[in-house]
């Protein structure tokens, strides 16, 4: 009609060409497909799987901590957060109001929390309230349908079974801070992330690497918006992609005795102080308590502002560990070591008697004993018993401070004990060289006198005192104290056992040991001893009271004024150190009660409670036996005293004169 066949034939050629061009085009397409699907197929396949998978950290549960009797001290407990995912939020005002009322929060706080996180992706949950109660969890779960976007997130909280008891020793964990991040990464060669919890104090800090375990990872399927899918297709797509199970942290068994720990905490509660008890034959720490304390669980649950403020505004500073991170003047508890120096250096012998005058004069300065009026002449045993300052002043007059330091250092003073806990202080034992370096002034003999009764420059920690007395108890075996006894894995398989480590064996004359130890025994077990009235029954303790003076350069006035009448912050610290039982010593205990006035009134009862706890638990037979003996001794003493008083009374009545000395227990030392 329009053309003819001739014409059509002309175009056949072009038709073939068109066909060829088209075939070439599809050839290119197929080539490209081959390149993508066959040549690079495996790579793209991997991409497509990575695309849909998100690697999520599977956090390793932290190791648990047990007491020496296998009681759980630190546990991991699931807790709950109320979270809101904005992506799913509907009926905003209604939902938020309901949520606020369930959580007992102000709607404004809820909104401001959301606003704070408004820059993050909408599918990311925002924590509205941390650590909600089970009741709140139940309420949110049941109203789930009417609360779109609201859900409950689980997290593992570190729970310290006994709360504040031993908080400083156990420590706490909290999120790694921005400043810690680079430091810890390079230190541990571990890829820490923000949000990781690490030990920040005490054992949690020291043993962090053992406790923390190894995080694993798991793949979850996510869509293009990063939302988690409920299930993962378990077909062959995921070949070669495997989750890594987290490896739980290792568990610790401590040397700590939970009952003694609780007893010590109860005894110290309401006071500021610390107590350390250790096994004299191994150096195992049985008790280590510092008060006031904090609740470490709060740190892993997420500190509330109120709680944090209450900690940092407390003038007694609950975050301070008074057992190893603080030092103080040991007062008279240092006297045994002065005695040892004097005995060993031949300045005195066990039978040298010195009159306990009220005052002692060296040069122009007058040194006072704690009793204004001098008593009879005493030997070293009784000097310890009565804590006679003058005796030690006189002994110190001829003593070189460096030789006193030599003996003190033998017993571990002036250096860190080496316990594996963070931030231990070394205390201070002065020497001539030290003073010259520090003040540029040469040593003065008068200072030796002050040092001889544990004042002046001498500083010790509670732990050092306990350990030094342990060496007295064992006649010279000074161990390195330790708190971690065993490390074992989650199957209970023992991984590491810590063995006692003898630092040194102190060799002194037998007569020296006997004199000092008998002196310490008399302190507790003789009616004239400074701790006689506070010894309790059944412990067979030997020990020494001490007063750590808070104010220096005392006048005679405030020296003899009643401590309890002074303003709190000027009151002396009371110190008491003991070992028990005397016949076969097992433990040494040191206690410090800040501003507690006398060592016997404030610190000795604390020590007595802990020792009693030990005796009842581990040596019940002996405890009963001693109690019987000591009670009998006490009763006979009372009988004698009453008889004496009766007699005196009669004489007094006859003479119509003033009464005699009352019970002097209130102000000894």
């Amino acid at each position: 009609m329009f053309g003819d066949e001739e014409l059509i034939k002309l175009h056949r050629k072009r038709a073939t060409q068109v066909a060829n061009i088209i075939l070439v085009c599809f050839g290119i397409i197929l080539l490209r497909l081959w390149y993508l699907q066959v040549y690079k197929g495996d790579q793209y396949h991997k991409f497509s799987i990575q695309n849909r998978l998100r690697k999520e950290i599977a956090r390793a549960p932290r190791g648990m901590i047990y007491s020496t009797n296998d009681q759980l001290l630190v546990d991991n407990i699931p807790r709950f957060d109320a979270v809101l995912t904005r992506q799913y939020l509907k009926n905003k005002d209604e939902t938020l109001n309901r949520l606020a009322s369930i959580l007992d929060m102000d709607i404004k706080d809820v909104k401001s929390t959301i606003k704070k996180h408004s820059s993050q992706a909408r599918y990311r949950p925002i924590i509205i309230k941390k650590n909600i109660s089970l009741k709140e969890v139940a309420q949110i779960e049941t109203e789930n349908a009417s609360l779109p976007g609201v859900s409950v997130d689980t997290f593992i909280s570190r729970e310290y079974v006994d709360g504040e008891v031993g908080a400083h020793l156990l420590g706490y964990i909290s999120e790694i801070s921005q400043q810690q991040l680079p430091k810890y990464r390079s230190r541990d060669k571990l890829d820490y992330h923000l949000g990781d919890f690490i030990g920040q104090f005490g054992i949690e800090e020291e043993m962090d690497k053992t406790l923390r375990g190894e995080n694993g990872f798991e793949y979850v399927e996510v869509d293009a918006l990063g939302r988690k899918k409920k299930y993962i297709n378990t077909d062959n797509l995921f070949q070669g992609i495997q989750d890594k199970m987290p490896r739980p942290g290792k568990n610790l068994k401590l040397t700590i005795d939970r009952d003694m720990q609780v007893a010590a905490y109860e005894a110290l509660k309401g006071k500021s102080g610390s107590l350390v008890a250790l096994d004299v034959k191994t150096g195992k720490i049985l008790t280590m308590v510092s008060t006031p304390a904090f609740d470490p669980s709060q740190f892993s649950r997420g500190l509330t502002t109120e709680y944090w403020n209450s900690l940092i505004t407390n003038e007694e500073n609950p975050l301070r560990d008074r057992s190893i991170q603080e030092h103080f003047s040991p007062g008279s508890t240092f006297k045994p070591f002065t005695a040892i120096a004097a005995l060993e250096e031949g300045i005195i012998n066990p039978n040298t008697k010195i009159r306990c005058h009220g005052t002692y004069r060296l040069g122009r300065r007058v040194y006072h004993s704690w009793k204004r009026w001098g008593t009879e002449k005493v030997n070293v045993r009784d000097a310890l018993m009565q804590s006679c300052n003058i005796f030690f002043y006189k002994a110190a007059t001829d003593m070189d401070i460096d030789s006193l330091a030599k003996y003190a250092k033998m017993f571990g003073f002036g250096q860190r004990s080496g316990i594996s806990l963070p931030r231990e202080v070394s205390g201070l034992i002065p020497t001539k060289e030290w003073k010259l370096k520090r003040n540029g002034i040469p040593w003065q003999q008068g200072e030796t006198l002050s040092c001889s009764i544990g004042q002046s420059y001498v500083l010790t920690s509670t732990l050092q005192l306990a350990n030094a007395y342990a060496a007295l108890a064992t006649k010279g075996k000074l161990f390195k104290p330790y708190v971690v006894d065993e490390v074992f894995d989650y199957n209970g398989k023992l991984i590491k056992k810590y063995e006692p480590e003898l630092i040194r064996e102190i060799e002194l004359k037998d007569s020296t040991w006997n004199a000092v130890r008998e002196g310490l025994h008399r302190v507790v077990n003789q009616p004239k001893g400074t701790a006689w009235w506070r010894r309790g029954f059944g412990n067979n303790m030997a020990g020494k009271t001490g007063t750590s003076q808070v104010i220096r350069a005392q006048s005679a006035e405030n020296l003899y004024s009643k401590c309890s009448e002074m303003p709190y912050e000027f009151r002396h610290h009371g110190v008491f150190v003991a070992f028990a039982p005397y016949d076969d010593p097992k433990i040494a205990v040191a206690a410090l009660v800040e501003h507690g006035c006398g060592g016997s009134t404030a610190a000795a009862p604390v020590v007595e409670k802990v020792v009693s706890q030990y005796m009842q638990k581990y040596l019940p037979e002996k405890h009963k036996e001693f109690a019987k003996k000591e009670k009998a001794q006490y009763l006979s003493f009372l009988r004698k005293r009453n008889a004496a008083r009766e007699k005196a009374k009669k004489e007094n009545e006859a003479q119509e004169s003033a009464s005699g000395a009352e019970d002097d227990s209130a102000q000894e030392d």
Partner: protein
Amino acid sequence: MNRAILEFFKKYDYTFMVTMLAIFIVGVLNLYSATHSHSSAHMQNLFKSQILWFSLANVIAFGISMFPPKSMFRLAYWAYAFNVLLLILVLIMGKEGMGAQRWLVFGGFRLQPSELMKISLALALARYYTKNSPEKELYLKDLIVPFIITIIPTVLIVVQPDLGTGLLLLLIFLVVSFYKRLRWKSIGVIVLLGLISGSVMYKFGLKEYQKKRILTFIDPYADAKGSGYNAIQSEIAIGSGRWFGKGFKKSSQASLNYLPENHTDFVFSIYNEEHGFFGSVVLISLYIILLMRFIWLAGSSLRFFDSILAIGLMAIFFWHTFINMSMVMGLMPIVGLPLPLMSYGGSSILTFGICIGLVTSISNSRNLF
């Protein structure tokens, strides 16, 4: 009478319809797979409306195939003029969608005149080339009028803006002109002109987002989460299919929403992800069979108008197929052209149905009219 009808159906060329159906079946299954896991019910039901559109397209195609090509020859310019008018109407009172004015709404019916324009252009060009000295080779000057015929709707479509369809009209024009024995020298000149005008266009004529598409094509990884996202995810989807694919309904890229528009522009990616290289060879073979049938018909048609129209309609199919496949596999910048009979879209299905109707009519005319 009955005999005549029987004769008609005996001689009726079903090949185009059957091939179309084959591709459509693959397409609708793929559409179902791509959308079945989508969260909205509307998306999940897309394949149903696709089937409805396809049925309608078949009815129309069958209807058109009843008419002899002669009537199309007569209607060619009218259809062209009417369609250009519609394009102008779109610019004046069109409905906006996706940032461009493409639709006319009549009652509840949405019409996309740019889709029909492809066919109208093929008709107009076929008629023009038939009328004017069909025996001669084409010189450049002979292209002036057909170029004007082409450029008017092209400009109207590009300003909508719909660059893809605009370019498609030019490509149809090129294929038809090539078929009408355009001299190779002239082709060289056109290619040169195209390159120059193309770069001038890029510099001054393109909108920011259009430029971005081209830049994205050159380096999709420069903005992998933004403008390069689709291109990259599409390549991942295709590549991850490997030899035999992940299997029907197993596309992770689609079911997890990594590929947006996976029911329209990116159906081929999903198909490749699920059926792999092997599946693609099958699908591409179907397209090649269809296109070769067009070309064979053009080459064997006794009437010149029929021959050129067949090539023009073939060009519509071919360019859609080639461009869509190329863009999803990173051979071309992403322009929004659907894959014939695979992508979701009523207008597009109807357009291809009309094409099939026309070409069936041409084929039938060899034996019937």
